[in-house]
């Protein structure tokens, strides 16, 4: 008899394992990885009584169809997701995010799609049986690092689940809803003065459209062209998640969790830490605006973000 696992009946568009991310390797070109939306990642773990740093399944747009084999689990899904649970009596139960469910041997989870966001998270009590690489379980598909040989999951593959006690599972529910606010707060970047006065005004006043060119590496925007009056290239230097670069074509790129570790495009601004989850969840076609904040305000806003996260995490403790 094999261990408890999910059999993948449909892989979904981009189904991977993610966690808090992989640190201390930027200097050899290995990027952060990790869940794009760190708050929803933590909430998913919290709902099934896992450590907040446990690895889980991240999916994008259309998620996977998973059949549970050889066991019984307690699971939860977070995000803004439309999903069904297919019970053993063939009854289809509409799933709700931010609450836990028991899934019996042979039953299925059908993650149909995200609604107004890109990413969702599926956690199981006890976590998945995976091998760690450099302090993280995150799958980095570019460098092919992490579980499943660093590749996204495909049909017929299995994801094994660690043994856990699922007696006396309490129902848990978090009363959470993403804000879907379209104002992205930023701090001016180190090359802000490479841009004309007109470009600086446009950057903070006009709408930017999230294009279809979005993945875990970054997000290309389209909007008023920003004129660079100094140099459209800089000597390559380090990058971080949330950096907004302006390449020669004048259209911004926001870097996300799988970004290249160094690059040579001017940095006009950096998204504040409190808004990174929100940025990662923006869907193509959304219009956003950038708003400047000071470093001191950004630090306060991050404190608020953490407090709000903790408030939800403590709701049932």
């Amino acid at each position, binding site marked *: 008899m094999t261990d408890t696992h999910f059999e993948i009946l449909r892989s979904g568009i981009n189904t991977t394992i993610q966690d808090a991310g992989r*640190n*201390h*390797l*930027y*200097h*050899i*070109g*290995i990027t*952060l990885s990790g869940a794009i939306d760190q708050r929803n990642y933590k909430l998913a773990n919290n709902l099934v009584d896992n450590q907040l740093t446990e690895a889980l399944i991240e999916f994008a747009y259309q998620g996977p169809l998973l059949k549970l084999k050889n066991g019984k689990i307690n699971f939860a899904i977070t995000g803004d997701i439309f999903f069904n649970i297919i019970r053993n009596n063939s009854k289809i139960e509409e799933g709700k995010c931010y609450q836990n469910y028991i899934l019996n041997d042979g039953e299925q989870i059908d993650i149909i799609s995200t609604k107004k966001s890109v990413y969702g998270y599926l956690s199981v009590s006890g976590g998945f049986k995976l091998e760690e*690489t*450099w302090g993280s379980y995150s799958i980095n598909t*570019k*460098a*092919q*690092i992490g579980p499943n040989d*660093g590749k996204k999951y495909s049909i017929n593959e299995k994801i094994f689940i660690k043994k856990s006690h699922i007696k006396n599972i309490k129902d848990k529910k978090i009363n959470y809803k993403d804000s879907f606010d379209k104002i992205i707060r*930023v*701090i001016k*970047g*180190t090359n802000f003065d490479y841009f004309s006065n007109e470009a600086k005004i446009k950057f903070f006043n006009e709408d930017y459209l999230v294009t279809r060119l979005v993945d875990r590496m970054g997000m290309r925007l389209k909007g008023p062209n920003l004129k660079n009056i100094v140099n459209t290239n800089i*000597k*390559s*230097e*380090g*990058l*971080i998640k*949330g*950096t907004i670069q302006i390449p020669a074509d004048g259209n911004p790129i926001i870097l996300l969790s799988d970004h*290249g*570790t*160094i*690059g040579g495009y001017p*940095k006009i601004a*950096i*998204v*504040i*830490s409190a808004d990174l989850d929100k940025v990662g969840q923006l869907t193509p076609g959304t219009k956003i605006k950038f708003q400047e904040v000071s*470093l001191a305000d*950004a*630090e306060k806003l*991050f404190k608020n973000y*953490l407090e709000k996260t903790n408030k939800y995490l403590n709701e049932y403790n």
Partner: protein
Amino acid sequence: MIKNISNLGDAAVYCDFGLEVNETVNSNVIDYFNHLRHLVNQKKIQGINNLTPSYNKLIISFDLSVTNFSKLKKIIENLNIKKSIKKNNQKIKIPVCCDNKYGLDFDRLSSKLNLSKEEILNFFFDKEYFCYMTGFIAGMPFFGDLNEKIRFDRLETPRIKVPEGSVGITEQFTNIYTFESPGGWNIIGNTPKAVFQKLNLQDPALIKPGDKVSFYQISKEEHLKFND
């Protein structure tokens, strides 16, 4: 020395060593990098997530729930950097096949630089290079400086896919594409040597900032058989 320390967003420190790109400035960056890395490994500084040295900058990203910019700035200002505590001075030899199957941009380079393929290769192989940094993609090394006669701009339109192992040149620099990746450098050859080995968990990147590298030419047959 660091000319200016500023914040890069709310969770990173931007240490600027100036605009010049040369071995002296870069060695200084690497000294700071090694010193800080040592302190992080010894758990003498809390909250640092990553250190990214480049030609003339050092970026330190940190966990904003543990520390903040002003605390780290003070620590960095008060560091007593000893020159080259642990200098990387490996000498590495890298085989490169420059057959036209791999050297994708000789036509462009020959016409722009007004040099034959042979002349370009003579200038390229006749030098030992210094590794300024690794990154962009896992393990990708950036070396300098090329002979002035073979310096040229990036492609106007970058390639969507540069093959793994490609050796590229642009401006005063040369690099190795450790994975298939988008890229705009002029490709002059390909190395069969694994420059990034993910299975070597202790030390996946063969070449590190501060290392010296020389390239040597191999034939198409030698390239094919290299990993047999």
